[in-house]
């Protein structure tokens, strides 16, 4: 009657979860056995045949497959060559320091799960770089968990030794890069330091309002004109990897590698696109995209370019309240108060639910034109609008009282003169 430890565990887990846990379906186990007994295949031979090369490191060996593209290869609307011909200006400004095209490493991973906890393993690290007249993508494969230290070592020594590498990623700031650093800690290797340009943030600013989401796949489809055929959804990558660990048959991984390769290629095309927009080579598609550019130029103190972009934004067919509002504030900073005031007047009339322009207008009349009566009328009108929040109402009351005081003084002054 004595139960084995494993019977106990199984029964206990079933009683708690309320469902049966069958650890390994028997037919699967047979299949596995058969494969191992009948068709003996050597994973190394297979990886070599699939184009991988073996890299020796102090932590053992690992596998890497490098895919070179002629720089004249097209990916969506862009050629890889376009990247080499970029004036690095726009990208440098996004990065916040000078961007040397030769130091750029495009980086992307595939992982065995979401999250950046210690148990999440990136099983594929890809590094894209330009060499001579080729764009190369080196795909480092952690073909079993024990190969990870070798992969991390090889990747560092091949691509990140000079210390001034510039990492380009998509959502890498919060996912891929911290994960890589975490893996290095796990393997007791020093953390890497790079400059990091995460294209997610500029993309979000440029296209958030136009696209249903700013996932890389959406950007590819709508912005880069990249078509993917028979693409494996990224979410299926973990299952494929687990399958590979069981079967050791690289076939199941090819789709994952191809998917990942295209992701890295799209990083290049996206850099080209964003850079062209900043440098004015490409035309922005909508008001919000112009506005995003304008606010960048504004922040970079490129007044002339900002002015042009703001005007483009407000002249766009889909120009919205925010574009006019930000433009008016830009004009105010530039001292073009009359022009700003005319925008405020329009906004206050057309969007009475937004009190900010009316307040600006009141300030303009009170402090600049010194037309207190006009200022008073605006403040009163704003106060009477529906839905004014209590703190705003209090601020308005305060302003109102001050203007009334000034008005009274002015009248008195007028009386004396």
């Amino acid at each position, binding site marked *: *009657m*004595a*139960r084995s*430890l*494993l019977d*106990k*565990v*199984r*029964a*206990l*887990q079933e*009683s*708690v979860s*309320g469902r049966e*846990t069958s*650890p*390994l379906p028997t037919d699967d186990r047979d299949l596995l056995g058969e494969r191992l007994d009948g068709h003996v295949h050597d994973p190394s031979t297979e990886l070599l045949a699939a184009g991988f090369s073996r890299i020796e490191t102090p932590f053992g060996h690992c596998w890497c497959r490098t895919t070179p593209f002629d720089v004249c290869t097209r990916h969506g609307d862009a050629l890889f060559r376009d990247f080499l011909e970029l004036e690095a200006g726009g990208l440098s400004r996004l990065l916040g320091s000078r961007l040397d095209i030769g130091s750029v490493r495009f980086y992307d991973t595939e992982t*065995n*799960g*979401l*999250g*950046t*906890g*210690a*148990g999440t*393993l990136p099983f594929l690290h890809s590094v894209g770089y330009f060499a001579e007249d080729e764009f190369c993508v080196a795909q480092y494969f952690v073909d*079993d*968990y*024990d190969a990870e230290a070798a992969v991390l070592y090889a990747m560092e020594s091949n691509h990140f030794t000079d210390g001034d590498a510039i990492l380009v990623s998509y959502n890498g700031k919060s996912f891929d890069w*911290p994960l890589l*650093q*975490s*893996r290095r*800690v*796990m393997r007791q290797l020093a953390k890497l330091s790079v400059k990091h340009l995460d294209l997610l943030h500029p993309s979000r600013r440029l296209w958030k309002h136009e696209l249903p989401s700013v996932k890389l796949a959406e950007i590819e489809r709508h912005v880069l004109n990249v078509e993917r055929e028979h693409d494996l959804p990224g979410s299926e990558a*973990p299952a494929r990897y*687990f399958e590979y*660990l069981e079967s050791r048959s690289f076939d199941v991984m090819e789709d994952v590698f191809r998917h990942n390769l295209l992701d890295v290629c799209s990083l290049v095309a996206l850099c080209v696109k964003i850079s062209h927009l900043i440098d004015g080579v490409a035309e922005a598609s909508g008001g919000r995209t112009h506005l995003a550019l304008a606010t960048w130029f504004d922040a970079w103190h490129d007044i002339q370019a900002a002015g042009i972009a703001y005007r483009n934004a407000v002249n766009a067919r889909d120009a919205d309240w925010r574009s006019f509002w930000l433009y008016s504030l830009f004009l105010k900073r530039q001292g073009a108060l009359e022009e700003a005031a005319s925008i405020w007047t329009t906004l206050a009339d057309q969007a009475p639910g937004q009190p900010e322009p009316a307040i600006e207008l009141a300030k303009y009349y009170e402090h600049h034109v010194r037309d207190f009566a006009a200022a008073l009328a605006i403040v009163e009108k704003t106060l009477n609008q529906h839905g004014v929040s209590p703190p705003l109402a209090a601020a308005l009351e305060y302003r109102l009282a001050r203007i009334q005081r000034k008005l009274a003084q002015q009248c008195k002054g007028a009386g004396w003169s």
Partner: protein
Amino acid sequence: MNLDQLLHEWKRDEQFVEQVAAWRVTPARLGQYREIPGSVHQEVRFALEQRGIQSLYSHQAEAWEVAARGQDLVVVTPTASGKTLCYNLPILDQICKNPATRALYIFPTKALAQDQVAELHGLLGHVKTQIQSFTYDGDTPVNARQKIREAGQIVVTNPDMLHSAILPHHTKWLKLFENLRYIVIDETHMYRGVFGSHFANVIRRLLRICEFYGARPQFIMSSATIANPGELAHWLTGREIHVIGESGAPQGERHTILYNPPIVQPQLGLRASSLQTARRLGGRLLREGIATIAFVKTRTQVEVLASYLKSDARERQRGEIVGYRGGYLPHERRRIERGLRAGEITGVVSTNALELGVDIGSLDAAITVGYPGSIASILQQSGRAGRRKGVSLSLVIANASALDQYLMAHPEALLESSPESARIYPDNLLILMDHLKCAAYELPFAADEQFAVETTAELLEYLADARVLHRGRDAKFYWMSDALPSQGVSLRSASQENVVIIDQTDTAHPVVIGETDRFGALTTLHEEAIYLHQSKSYQVERLDLDNGKAFVRRVDCDYYTDAELAVRLQVLDELEVVEQDTAVHRFGEVAVNATPTLFKKIKFDTHENLGWGRIYLPEAELHTTAYWCSFAESSFDFSQDDWESALKGFGHVLKHAGALHCMCAPSDLHATVQVKDPLHGRPSAYVYDAYPGGIGLAERMFRDRDLILRSSFDMIRACACESGCPSCVGPGQVDEGLKDRVLQLLHSLVVDGLSLAERGV
């Protein structure tokens, strides 16, 4: 009238004194002081002086010396004896000497952490060296987390956060782990039973990670009074821990009164209800403006007593009386705790939730309604009164149970015996497996690595077969599933998911008002159940067990509900057997299937039965460990019906005596009977752990069955009733010979027929 005067009045009141089983006065005690050691860093010494601390209590000085020797230690002294300084002093000193030093403070709950941080910051404010101390819990803003990981020299957290946020992300805490020199575990006595078993495993994981980073932190722990602080600390940490048990703090005069409610029905020996007595005496204390806390056993009783006290109070005082129990949401609890500290709340009724050291300021009187299951709990509860100098009162009101009555007849058992031991069972298979997964997620397992048990390799193989782990070419076990294992594991229970209670009185704005565990939901949240929350009644409209939700609506009604479970038990494995003349004792593993069957509607105030209804819920299965006793049918001249009731009575008293002995709540143990057990066809009574996998209670009962059976025998024999009553043989139909039959069963097991006292034990 102040408490001192009221106590004098009671002392002169004959009716009151007649019901007093014992009245003990502990005189005020002077403090034992030591000089602040010369080796304390001058900045810390300065900070102490600024806080008005000129000297240390003797236990604080001893903690300093032991810590300085690098020894792990636990300080066991009463509430408000300056325990926190025992760890703050050596740690602040060390940080001043070496700012790279890191310390991790672990408090059982978030609330407790907040309190202690406030005190710590009071001290830090006077230290010139910049010492960064941060609380890292569920409320910590995401943007502050990065800084805490890098710069926090003292990181304050709770077991849940450690388990689900820090350990799984240990690589982000590189700085902390590489420099971790101290681990503070406050309120160590809280870590017992299931929670303690989980926590011991969290500590195993923590130490495993420390080892990875080359750190060997020192433990500084504190605990309320229990019999085995050193042992518990050892079970939790795996280290030998030095115990400091002598408090040097002063204490005011303290009165302990054991009060047995008067007999109202002499034939049946029925006494006035303990709850009504608490209402009467508690009401009096509150009317005199004496800050009072009352502890009751169940959540329902919290609501019932709180509403009694409220309705008896003067209009303006009603807002100052509240209930407080598990199942309230955190912000509601915080509000009550603040109210208590500020003196805005003068009366509180609680389950043992407040036993933990949440600083609620000083109360004058603590009422314990019904023996809470352990001496240590009584000490904790009475410790709630009398934190400041002056007179304080601990009033224990007995209920009708045989156990309570036994204690009233033997007050020395309560007043003189040492507190019980706290037990944990960290190797509970289910709990261990959960943490083994978490540990594998955190760091791969080497093939020969042991995680506390010798069977580690077997368990890892099992997980690899289940494709949760992957056995790499290097023979290490790696985490493979794409889920985060800690998410599925709640430290507060062994069965995982909880049911949240949603109030949809306002259909447009449903509000979550509480939560409960799944097993509890079967009997408290079935459809039509009345759920009580802050003295308000809610009716359950729908229980969605699949999604863990119960939908309730406010109702106005004068009754509450009480549900019954039908239980089917099946033995899975007999692990040990001991034969006696008339009986066989066994210990082993069982599967219990429980189905809630029907519920009764019980009227407030009179407690009369107003009717009943059926419950339609699927059965729940529990795999656990049991102790059972099978009798030789022929040795007793009982009919079938006689057997059934006798076994039930036997099971009832055994469960209560077992709970007394194992220092657990009676609800941690369940009892059931079989007139013919399916394997041997013999009359059997079972007592089993109420948690999946068992937490060691039944095993202990099996080992200590002699003692437990003897106290069971005493309890029944000493009961004042004639032929058995709900307090000794439990609820149910009582016939003339029942008590005698139960006594016969017990007598046959207690070999010489003598009680404990008679044998001089």
